């Protein structure tokens, strides 16, 4: 299945794609069909979150774009250049922070980051490397061997390596997997700074709150199929359900039969009623519910509403696709 990223999508200014994936397919030698006819466009300067459960195809997709895995069928363009034909151009534009902490344990932080810059065809620029290390709070560790660093620091080194050649498109594959809250917040701040500097960010994650916090748009991939691409806000509005919670004046033992049609949930020892409704529906049913509650003699002292999280939306989508 493929999803046109523009279909049903609110305009975000002139279309300026930086990554265009067309009909991408990948089957590994083992026979595992990892990607099925993927179509995707990512816009310049946006933060795009690719969500999906483990084994959905997120890392395969990124690995093909970056040149680590051979593509099957289809084509990929980065900034208008084909990733196979013009691989030198596309790869010099891209930075990648892989999921695994794979570093040269015996090298110093400075040397390994400088090595990465050279590898991507850039002349030495100590001032830039210094700035990257300072931005990532690695400057004090620049002469330390990587094997002496903590896991969080190693993760920062991976990011520093990816930024060493000043990429215009940055892939972050599960950037905050296994990192503590502080580092996670630091990374989110860094990603926002990069985006402000014009870098397009594509991150894969299965932490929904990460996508909810950071992304402009969200893609959901499951079993190798891109099942949805949408603006995060539009997605939450379109697919989101809300919950109305009523704090009752008197606890109830059971719900009256007259309210059965509302599918209410009685909780908190009978003192709380929860009603779930669709914000996109023509009628939410709130008015009639409140009226029927009044007629049933059920009074409430407070009420609140809550928007469903992206996580719930994601779970629903993946469940439907299963």
């Amino acid at each position, binding site marked *: 299945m493929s999803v046109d990223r523009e279909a049903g999508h609110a305009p975000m200014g002139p279309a300026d794609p930086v990554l265009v994936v067309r009909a991408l397919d990948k089957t590994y030698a083992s026979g595992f069909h990892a990607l099925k006819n993927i179509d995707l466009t990512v816009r310049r300067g946006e933060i795009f979150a690719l969500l999906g459960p483990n084994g959905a195809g997120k890392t395969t997709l990124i690995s093909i774009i970056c*040149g680590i895995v051979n593509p099957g069928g289809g084509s990929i363009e980065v900034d208008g250049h084909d990733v196979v034909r013009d691989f030198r*151009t596309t790869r010099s534009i891209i930075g990648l922070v892989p999921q695994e902490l*794979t570093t040269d344990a015996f*090298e110093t932080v400075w040397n390994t980051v400088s090595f990465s810059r050279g*590898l991507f065809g850039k002349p030495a620029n100590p001032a830039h490397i210094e700035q990257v290390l300072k931005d990532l709070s690695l400057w004090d560790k620049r002469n330390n061997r990587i094997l002496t660093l903590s896991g969080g620091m190693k993760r920062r080194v991976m990011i520093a390596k990816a930024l060493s050649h000043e990429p215009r498109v940055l892939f972050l594959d599960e950037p905050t997997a296994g990192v503590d809250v502080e580092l996670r917040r630091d990374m989110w701040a860094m990603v926002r700074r990069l985006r402000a500097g014009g870098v397009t960010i594509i991150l894969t994650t299965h932490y929904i709150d990460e996508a909810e916090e950071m992304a402009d748009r969200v893609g959901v991939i499951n079993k190798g199929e891109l099942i949805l691409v949408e603006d995060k806000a539009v997605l939450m509005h379109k697919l989101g359900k809300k919950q109305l919670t009523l704090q009752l004046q008197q606890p109830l033992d059971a719900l009256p039969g007259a309210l059965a049609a509302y599918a209410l949930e009685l909780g908190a020892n009978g003192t709380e009623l929860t009603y779930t409704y669709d914000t996109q529906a023509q009628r939410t049913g709130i008015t009639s519910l409140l009226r029927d509650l009044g007629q049933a003699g059920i009074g409430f002292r407070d009420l609140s509403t809550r928007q469903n999280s992206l996580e719930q939306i994601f779970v629903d989508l993946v469940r439907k696709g299963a």
Partner: protein
Amino acid sequence: MNLYAVRAIYRFEMARTWRTLMQSVASPVLSTSLYFVVFGSAIGSRITSVEGISYGAFIIPGLIMLSLLTQSISNASFGIYFPKFVGTIYEVHSAPLSYIEIVMGYVGAAASKSVLVGLIILATARLFVDYHIVHPLWMLAFLLLTAVTFSLFGFIIGIWADNFEKLQVIPLLVITPLTFLGGSFYSIHMLPPLWQKVTLFNPVVYLISGFRWSFYGLADVSVGISLAATLGFLAACLAVVWWIFRTGWRLKA
């Protein structure tokens, strides 16, 4: 041509040599010195000369070749295997690099290290015996050609290997025996006629013979054949490397 990348890989690989100086340089020098002590002094004192050359001097090209082959293979195979093993190979794959540049970086560094070791052994030999080099430019040419060829071979082994044991199999079980039986410590003319013919199936004979010719003007086989055999093996290694990168064999899924 991404020369910055070639230089980055080359310097990165050479840096490991300096980090592991004892293992990279001191160890082959020590083992070669032991060969001189055992074969050159202890046994060589009972062999006055081989084809007019003192036995101690006669074995120098063979000893250098022994180290050159094993060092070239182990340097290059480890150089490419280690990033595969720890996972840092992703960076090489995702960089704007052609396979020629990757090979230039890794094989160039491996060959440089083994040439360095070869030259150190040559200098060490001076401490034990007197020798002269009749064709110094040919000596350097054979040294470089053999180092590059066997570094390419090591590079292939490093890509093929999926564990550390496999890295050692070819150098230990194939290269070292062939070198010992390829005339490192004797002239093949000293063998019975049947074994002389059998020995000609050993490719290392041609390497040692050509190299020894550059030292003393003496060869077990024609120097032209030696050169052709070395170039032939180089071409075969280049063809295999080209195929590996074209197909992504053992490198890319």
